[in-house]
């Protein structure tokens, strides 16, 4: 007891400073302990987490069939999910392109077709909403309307012509004849060389009409006796007959490929049962290539529609777009061009659908 009482008293008597320091030390020790406790509980785990993150691939970890992202999102990888991931990875570039160069322009031009739109160097495209006015203007236009009806007339006559012609050629080449390759080469040649300027020049020099057709009696009779609505497209077609037949290049090869897939045993069985060549054509050959007609109709309509004639619909749309200005009374700018293109596209799709229906019937597959 004595000692206990004595010890605290001596320093107080000896050094005031030391006593103060000790007091301060006790104070510090107390708070140091609180601080270390807090550090131990709150901060250390944080550092250990950082250490863990640095040593354990926290951002992306792939182990035991499990993908862990930030130790937080856990995905169980199945084979199907891995494949889906890689599939999207491979077509990613196409998805981006589809969004940027196809879908967005498509819908933006649809939006523009309801607007009066002009390009302005300072502000970009300036649009004013005018509803269906562009389409009404197209329907009123004395230049565009005949062009559209001309387009429809040309399609209605030439698409069946091309399809029938290509079936005939394909059936002919499919016979057991010599030099099949040469015939295929000849009939595919136009696909290679049919570029716009060359076609235009040939058409301008009248090298595309059948040589003796122009002066034939049938030709004159048709042009004189029919109403101009039908006769005009008809004369156009007869004048550019060879050009139209040139579109048959790819359909011929498609039909040929289809014919080569037909089982020869079918023909043998039919001829044993007494079917003539004529019967065999209608009962075996034609039904077997019928599903291909739809594909060919689509191809022919697309490739014929994309041919740009000087002063044609597409050419006009381009001029409207490039020359159009707010103060111009002839050329109406981006909105009008977009409307023309959309009407053209819709007509194209309608033509395609009707022909695919008429020729192909319902596809049973």
């Amino acid at each position, binding site marked *: 007891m004595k000692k206990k009482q004595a010890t605290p008293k001596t320093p107080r008597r000896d050094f005031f400073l030391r006593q103060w320091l000790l007091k301060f030390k006790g104070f510090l020790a107390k708070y140091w302990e609180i601080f270390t406790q807090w550090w131990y509980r709150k901060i250390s785990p944080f550092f250990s987490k950082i250490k863990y993150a640095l040593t354990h691939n926290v951002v992306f970890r792939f182990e035991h069939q499990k993908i862990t992202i930030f130790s937080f999102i856990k995905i169980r990888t199945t084979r199907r999910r891995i494949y889906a991931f890689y599939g999207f990875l491979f077509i990613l570039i196409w998805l981006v392109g589809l969004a940027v160069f196809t879908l967005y322009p498509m819908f*933006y031009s649809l939006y523009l077709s309801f607007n009066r739109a002009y390009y302005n160097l300072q502000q970009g495209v300036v649009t004013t909403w005018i509803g269906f006015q562009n389409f009404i203007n197209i329907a009123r236009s004395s230049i565009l309307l005949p062009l559209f009806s001309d387009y429809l007339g040309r399609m209605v006559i030439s698409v069946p012509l091309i399809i029938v012609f290509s079936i005939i050629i394909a059936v002919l080449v499919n*016979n057991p004849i010599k030099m099949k390759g040469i015939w295929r080469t000849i009939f595919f040649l136009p696909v290679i060389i049919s570029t716009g300027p060359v076609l235009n020049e040939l058409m301008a020099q009248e090298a595309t009409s059948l040589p003796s057709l122009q002066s034939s009696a049938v030709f004159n009779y048709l042009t004189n006796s029919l109403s101009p609505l039908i006769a005009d497209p008809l004369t156009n077609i007869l004048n550019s007959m060879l050009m139209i037949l040139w579109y048959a290049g790819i359909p011929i090869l498609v039909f040929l490929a289809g014919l080569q897939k037909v089982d020869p045993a079918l023909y043998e069985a039919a001829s044993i049962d007494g079917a003539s*060549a004529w019967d065999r054509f209608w009962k075996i050959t034609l039904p077997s290539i019928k599903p291909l007609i739809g594909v060919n109709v689509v191809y022919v309509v697309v490739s014929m529609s994309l041919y740009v004639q000087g002063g044609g619909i597409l050419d006009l749309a381009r001029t409207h777009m490039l020359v159009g200005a707010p103060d111009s009374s002839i050329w109406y700018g*981006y909105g009008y061009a*977009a409307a023309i293109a959309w009407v053209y596209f819709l007509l194209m799709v309608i033509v395609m659908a009707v022909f695919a229906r008429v020729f192909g019937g319902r596809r049973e597959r």
Partner: protein
Amino acid sequence: MKRKIDVGELKSRLKRFLFGMKFMDGFIFKFVIYILLISFSYIYLYPILYMLVNSFKTVDDLINPGVRWVPTVFEWENYSRAFEVLEFPQSIFDTTWYVLKVSIAATVSSSIIGYGFARFKFPGKKILFAIMLATFILPSQVTMVANMIIYQRLDIMSSEWTMLLPAITGQGINAAIFILIFYQFYKTIPTVLMESAEVDGASQFRIFRTIALPLALPSFLIVFLFSFVWYWNETFITALYVGGAVTLPLKLQAFRASYELLFPPGTAGAELNEAIMLAGNMVTILPLLVLYFVAQRYFTESIDRTGITGE
């Protein structure tokens, strides 16, 4: 020894020769088929022959109705004029270089995209594939209005990037067909090959690089040839986005104007006639014709590759 000629046998042999066993293999049938084929191919080749023959004609031959198929003199002057107007041979190198870049971009990108569609199953694949095929029927004229604005924002208007960017992302000319060709080809590679590589620890990119690509070389060639031809022949979009006189067909489009610049009207013996125009046309399609006759097999086999005829 004289053999007696049996009239009956001769008759039956003649009949057999003419009509064959089943008519389909007789002489008459074949004769009719050859006649039809030859006449159809005459119709088909008539514009090309016309172009070839008339491009060699002199002015006198052009007017003379008696000269139709064989010119009296082969006028090479037409071709030298056409060369001069079309800036041969510099223009052919420029065109080839430009088309080569674009078509290689289109080929490589469609091979990757086609592999993605053919090899992997993922949600929404059927819809995306249908959209991909549907882009074939969308004319570029529908999207041109908005595409012009996009290119202007990207600041690549009037440069080759306007054709390269869509080609790289699989949206170029007829890209749907190219992707379809690759798709059908990759479908025919047995999946066992790739699965065994996967078991051995190859990554998907390695499988694509070392197994799928080497097998697909014929498809590469076909797609490359077609994209080359189609990009060469494309004039509307190229003129709009890239510029007026980039490719040979575009130079041909402006043939009259550039001819009058070189040979002003009024110069003696320098009037532009049809023969010179046709010579220009021949020069423009000549590279493609050469390409076609060299690689003819790949062009005509392409249809089987698209697999639209079903298996």
